[in-house]
């Protein structure tokens, strides 16, 4: 978009590493999270969940439970006004045609995964609610079940849903793959397997609901999507304006709070009892019940010329959706689009499928299907380089998409792809190689690059809105529906408003995440919030500025274009100033509004027919390159990451501190994915429902992550920023796998790369 401020003036506030207004409270444990709220007379709620991965409900009797001490209500499917919940594309858009995905709020006659909600209990105390849960009389008759995608797609497999086990598939093809392979000097084939992982945020799913004095069912919770108020209203069968969702500052979301969590239960219970209700999932419940990241099996066949230039790619992806669709079809679309990486792929075929099983459901998680593919295409890239004896940075530079090139899906790259520079800088940041500290230790290095869409699929017609208004004393209020999931979303909006309107940050207050009182801004997902709401705030601020400066120009008897707004005053070129306060008084007198609502519409497009193979899918992409140095214990297989550098082109860093935080956090979460995180599911039963068994990295497991922030000025966001929420989680697993091969010669193809798997690859384990 037009960018007068950025190009004609030096930026004063945007680009500064400003300490976020929420940072201190969080460190000092003063932040009130969703679970910290309480109301007088509040009930406590608990969900009864299925212990079986696949069963018919033969009997469900709540009489005994309802009679237990302190129990206010016990609900089953029969008590839910409309027991169907839509689970596709939350946010502003609700029609996506054939991708419609639904599930039951509470199970009716059948459960399809362990942890599926069966009944809902509210009681005076949490202990009473739990006790009553155990008194619900449920009988299950186990049904045939299926636990691997291969089994699910085999003929005669038990059907998880009547529609069959193949939930979605995408196919794209460009060029002539066979001819490409015929020209190739080297062909590399690999099959990669990734695992279920959990968002594992510090703050589990939680919220409180009550019926407010205006009769509106109000739900204050930890969510990435306040627009779920519509889904709640649908289930409760009340008008949408009768439900209000207030989002709190989150203790992490990572996609796990993109789908509905506690809000429908809380709404139902508040409606049925007329009393305030609270629900906080335990860690065990969160690890059991939340949707996971999709496990993938990725098959790659890659052909390259002796120069390293890739001339053929044959890709086959198969993902596990678990028992319900949720966002699986879209996750798979992200995989399909990104399957060949940020590289030219003149001859390519991608077949991508996602299947139902009786495993835990899978849905959104940071990276959203564009992550699993990095492990595939970057492992392949490294093998090509190794086979041809080409330097890892060079092989990537040779293949990088240029402006004007097309992705396999036919989308033309309209912005700069900084992969060569990012790769060079990340690689150089590793410095001189560490000497092995013992004879049994080997040291190696690996590189991995990625592309990650930011913003929503163009045919979802995404938009965001924000309201900015001055108080009479010149202080500023920003209202924007965007939930702050911990990435500094709210604070960056203040920085943008401050830049344009010249109001110091300590004179700005931002209200976010309230479906009734803040303009809707869409989900804090898809790395879209800075891009979308940043643009909405920028638009509101610029339009408000223009409004005010017309008045100021009259007072100062000069042209509005010559005026500047700095530090709470309007400055004329001849050094005369006008205080904001006087300007606002004059606006009031002259009936010029002191506030403005800005609405930003992302570039939209029509759905592309992937099979026909052409078109724009995403507004733009963020690119990255990560480099890792690891040591491998050649007697035990243990891997330690010694050094780590992560470079991303963020277009422009609105707040470099927040950008570095996203890069470091993403890299660490990605290292957890690469090296240890694993939701172990055996025959549909989750064996890792505590942090003693579901291992995530501790501070002792990761080195300092050097964040390299590159600003090409090429993004679609405010001041040409790009989204950086998801991108940094993509490359770590592949970077580490590539480093391990560099150190030991062993190629790791299955995640997580545990010591035992490395030991086996090194032939250390005697059967």
């Amino acid at each position, binding site marked *: 978009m037009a960018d007068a401020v950025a190009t004609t003036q030096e930026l004063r506030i945007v680009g500064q590493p400003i300490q976020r207004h929420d940072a201190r409270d969080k460190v000092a444990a003063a932040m009130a999270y969703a679970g910290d709220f309480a109301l007088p007379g509040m009930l406590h709620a608990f969900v009864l969940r299925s212990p079986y991965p696949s069963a018919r409900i033969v009997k469900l009797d709540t009489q005994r439970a309802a009679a237990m001490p302190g129990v206010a209500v016990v609900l089953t499917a029969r008590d839910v006004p409309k027991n169907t919940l839509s689970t596709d594309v939350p946010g502003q858009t609700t029609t996506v045609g054939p991708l419609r995905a639904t599930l039951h709020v509470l199970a009716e006659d059948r459960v399809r995964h362990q942890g599926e909600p069966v009944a809902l209990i509210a009681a005076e105390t949490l202990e009473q609610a739990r006790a009553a849960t155990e008194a619900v009389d449920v009988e299950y008759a186990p049904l045939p079940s299926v636990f691997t995608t291969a089994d699910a797609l085999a003929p005669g497999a038990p059907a998880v849903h009547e529609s069959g086990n193949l939930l979605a598939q995408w196919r794209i093809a460009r060029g002539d793959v066979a001819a490409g392979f015929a020209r190739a000097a080297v062909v590399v084939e690999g099959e990669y397997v990734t695992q279920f992982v959990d968002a594992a945020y510090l703050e589990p799913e939680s919220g409180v609901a009550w019926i407010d004095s205006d009769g509106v069912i109000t739900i204050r919770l930890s969510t990435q999507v306040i627009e779920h108020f519509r889904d709640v209203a649908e289930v409760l069968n009340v008008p949408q304006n009768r439900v209000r969702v207030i989002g709190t500052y989150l203790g992490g979301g990572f996609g796990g709070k993109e789908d509905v969590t506690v809000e429908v239960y809380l709404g139902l219970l508040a409606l049925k009892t007329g009393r305030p209700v609270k629900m906080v999932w335990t860690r065990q419940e969160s690890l059991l019940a939340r949707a996971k990241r999709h496990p993938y099996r990725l098959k790659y066949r890659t052909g390259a010329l002796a120069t390293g230039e890739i001339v053929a790619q044959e890709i086959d992806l198969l993902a596990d959706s678990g028992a319900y669709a949720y966002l699986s079809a879209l996750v798979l679309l992200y995989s399909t689009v990104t399957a060949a990486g940020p590289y030219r792929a003149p001859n390519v075929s991608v077949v991508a499928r996602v299947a139902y099983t009786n495993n835990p459901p899978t849905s959104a998680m940071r990276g959203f299907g564009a992550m699993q593919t990095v492990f595939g295409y970057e492992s392949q890239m490294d093998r090509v380089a190794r086979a041809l004896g080409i330097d890892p940075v060079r092989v990537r530079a040779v293949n990088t998409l240029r402006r004007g090139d097309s992705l396999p899906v036919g989308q033309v790259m309209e912005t700069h792809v900084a992969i060569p520079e990012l790769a060079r800088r990340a690689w150089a940041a590793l410095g001189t190689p560490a000497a092995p500290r013992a004879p049994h230790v080997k040291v190696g290095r690996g590189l991995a690059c990625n592309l990650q869409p930011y913003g929503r699929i163009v045919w979802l017609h995404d938009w965001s809105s924000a309201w900015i208004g001055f108080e009479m004393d010149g202080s500023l209020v920003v209202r924007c529906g965007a939930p702050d999931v911990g990435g500094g979303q709210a604070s960056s909006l203040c920085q943008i408003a401050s830049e344009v309107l010249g109001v110091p940050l300590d004179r700005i207050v931002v209200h976010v995440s309230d479906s009734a009182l803040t303009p809707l801004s869409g989900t804090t997902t898809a790395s879209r919030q800075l891009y979308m709401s940043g643009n909405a705030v920028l638009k509101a601020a610029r339009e408000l500025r223009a409004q005010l400066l017309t008045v100021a120009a009259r007072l100062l008897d000069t042209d509005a274009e010559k005026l500047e707004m700095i530090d709470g005053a309007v400055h004329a070129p001849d050094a005369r100033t006008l205080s904001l306060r006087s300007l606002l008084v004059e606006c009031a007198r002259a009936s010029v509004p002191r506030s403005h609502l800005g609405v930003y519409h992302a570039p939209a497009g029509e759905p592309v027919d992937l099979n026909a193979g052409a078109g724009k899918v995403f507004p733009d992409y963020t690119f990255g390159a990560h480099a890792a140095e690891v040591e491998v214990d050649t007697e*035990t297989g243990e891997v*330690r990451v010694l050094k780590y550098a992560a470079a991303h082109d963020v277009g422009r860093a609105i707040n470099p501190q927040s950008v570095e935080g996203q890069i470091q956090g993403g890299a660490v979460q990605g290292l957890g994915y690469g090296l240890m995180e694993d939701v172990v599911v055996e025959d549909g039963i989750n064996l890792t429902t505590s942090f003693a068994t579901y291992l995530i990295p501790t501070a002792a497991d990761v080195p300092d992550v050097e964040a390299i922030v590159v600003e090409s000025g090429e993004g679609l966001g405010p001041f040409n920023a790009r989204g950086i929420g998801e991108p940094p989680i993509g490359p770590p697993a592949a970077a580490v796998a590539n480093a391990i091969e560099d150190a030991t010669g062993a190629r790791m193809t299955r995640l997580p790369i545990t010591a035992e798997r490395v*030991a086996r690859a090194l032939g250390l384990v005697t059967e």
Partner: protein
Amino acid sequence: MRYEAPESVQGAVALLAAANGDARVLAGGTDLLVQMRADVVEPELIVDIKRIRETRAVTQENGGWRIGAAVTGAELKEHAPLKQAWPGVVEAANLIGSTQVQGRATLGGNLCNGSPAADSVPALIAAGAVAKLAGPHGQRDLPVEDVMLGPRTLALRPGEFVVSFLLPPRPPRSADAYLRFIPRTEMDIAVVGAGVSIAVDGAGTITAARVSLGAVAPRVLLVAEAAQAIIGSRLDDAAQERLAAAARAACRPIDDKRGTTEFRVDVAGVLARRAALIAMDRARTR
């Protein structure tokens, strides 16, 4: 549930012996409280032993060291003379949990929780530590390797508890070491643990050794064959190989998501050898 905090050994024994229903000793509580919250145990009586002087002291006794059963990992870490004499025991105790857990976790709790993966137990066994038990029929001494019989099963009689541990006197040129293997760097349960204590003569030949392995059998093992494999050697390559082979031969591990049987067996050999090398190194320089 009743909570008592007696101030004498006799007082604790009286409470434990008189209890009907499940009575539990409470030391740091880092196992017990977790298990209570998870409804794994529901004791009727809790006897907190931290007010009993004998359980909280580290004292010298006949040239050896007596460590109270309720002394915490953090306290052991601060005890320079003990650390000097038994570095392996102290480093094992200090591996338990995190800084926070260290402020509570005790040797007595680690042993009496009855986990085959308890970190300090192989180090105590390699050190030749003897537990002092107090019960309704008086006190008795029991080598640590005889206290635990299997997962969650102890040789303690009704009403008995562990008051303290005695580590024997340290001969010159002797030392110990403990190593464990876990899937991440901290805060995790051992897949394999190996404790080794070694004494060498002036020529650097091993004159005495004890080797103990954790997490590779239903109870922590004292592996005499592994010790035999290095006694009389200078821990040359061949002796190291014999040690690793003997350690592996003794393993009877479970197979689970943390580590398959084969992997645990393999790593047990590696750790036994590495722990021996560290102990040897320490012994030579004393």
